């Protein structure tokens, strides 16, 4: 399935969970906030969050700012 992650199209096996996608991307799960189709998915819910074709995923973290 194709997912739009942080604005980039990426291919993943069908039915993967958000947790698995984050792991496969190599992103550190403890410092990232995730949204799927503009809904925040908290850390403990990521394993249950099955993704499907065309889902928009945003992975956000703290960066320097004023």
């Amino acid at each position, binding site marked *: 399935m194709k997912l739009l*992650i*942080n*604005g*980039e199209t*990426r291919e993943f096996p069908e039915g993967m969970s958000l947790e698995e996608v984050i792991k496969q*991307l*190599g*992103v*550190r799960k403890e*410092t*990232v*906030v995730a*949204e799927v189709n*503009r809904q*925040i998915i*908290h850390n403990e819910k990521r394993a249950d969050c099955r993704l499907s074709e065309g889902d928009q995923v*945003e*992975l*956000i*973290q*703290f*960066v*320097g*700012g*004023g």
Partner: protein
Amino acid sequence: MTATLEQIKSEDTYQINGKTFTSRLLVGTGKYATNELMTQCLEASGTQIVTVALRRVNLDNKGEKTLLDFIDPKKYTLLPNTAGCYSAEEAIRVAHLARATGISDFVKLEVLYDEKTLLPDPIATLEATKTLVKEGFTVMTYTSDDPVMAQKLEQAGAHAVMPAGSPIGSGQGVLNPNNIRIILEKLKCPILIDAGVGSASDVAVAMELGVVAVLLNTAIAHAKDPLKMAHAMRHATEAGRLSYLAGRIPKKLYAQASTPIKDF
């Protein structure tokens, strides 16, 4: 009247939404040459509240160090900003994302209107303040130095109102001290100068007006020697605060001799 400097400083606290702070300098974490330098500057500044931003993870830099590897949220209160948001909706979304980290429910709310001035959109700022206060955030709102707007933000429930001394990153200092004086007179909530300070003297001027604290970023991060400037800003904040507490002499047109005039 015999209190030591340390006693005066430890007793001179302020609160934001019930949380007590002693340092009156809030420091941003952007624009530093390296994260290591940023860490040293935060330490030198004596700050207790640091602003941070939220951005997309770079998918091509797997496992890279993140800001939180350099800032201990147990040591500093993180103040996530909504920088770069141009609508109330966007700013509210960013605040939600920040809170979802589980690290902080503070938010430095800024809703901008245009890229050149980085001035806030007052209507959207007011709307977002109302919403985020209702949702239980500790809202510290960036605004222009307009006293009416500042009052509206306080009425909307802002936990701190943060007028810009001058445009963000401009280093022009506090351009309209009279507006800041009026804001201080009219509002009861904590007032912070957010943005525009360029040097230690700018910070001292702001503190002498009676604001509870100053928030800055570029003035340290882009100084020729950021670490020295971080020390300078800490001293200037403390000097300005003490000067405010001490109460300055009135300005006079004519000289007044410091040495008693007596017959020899």
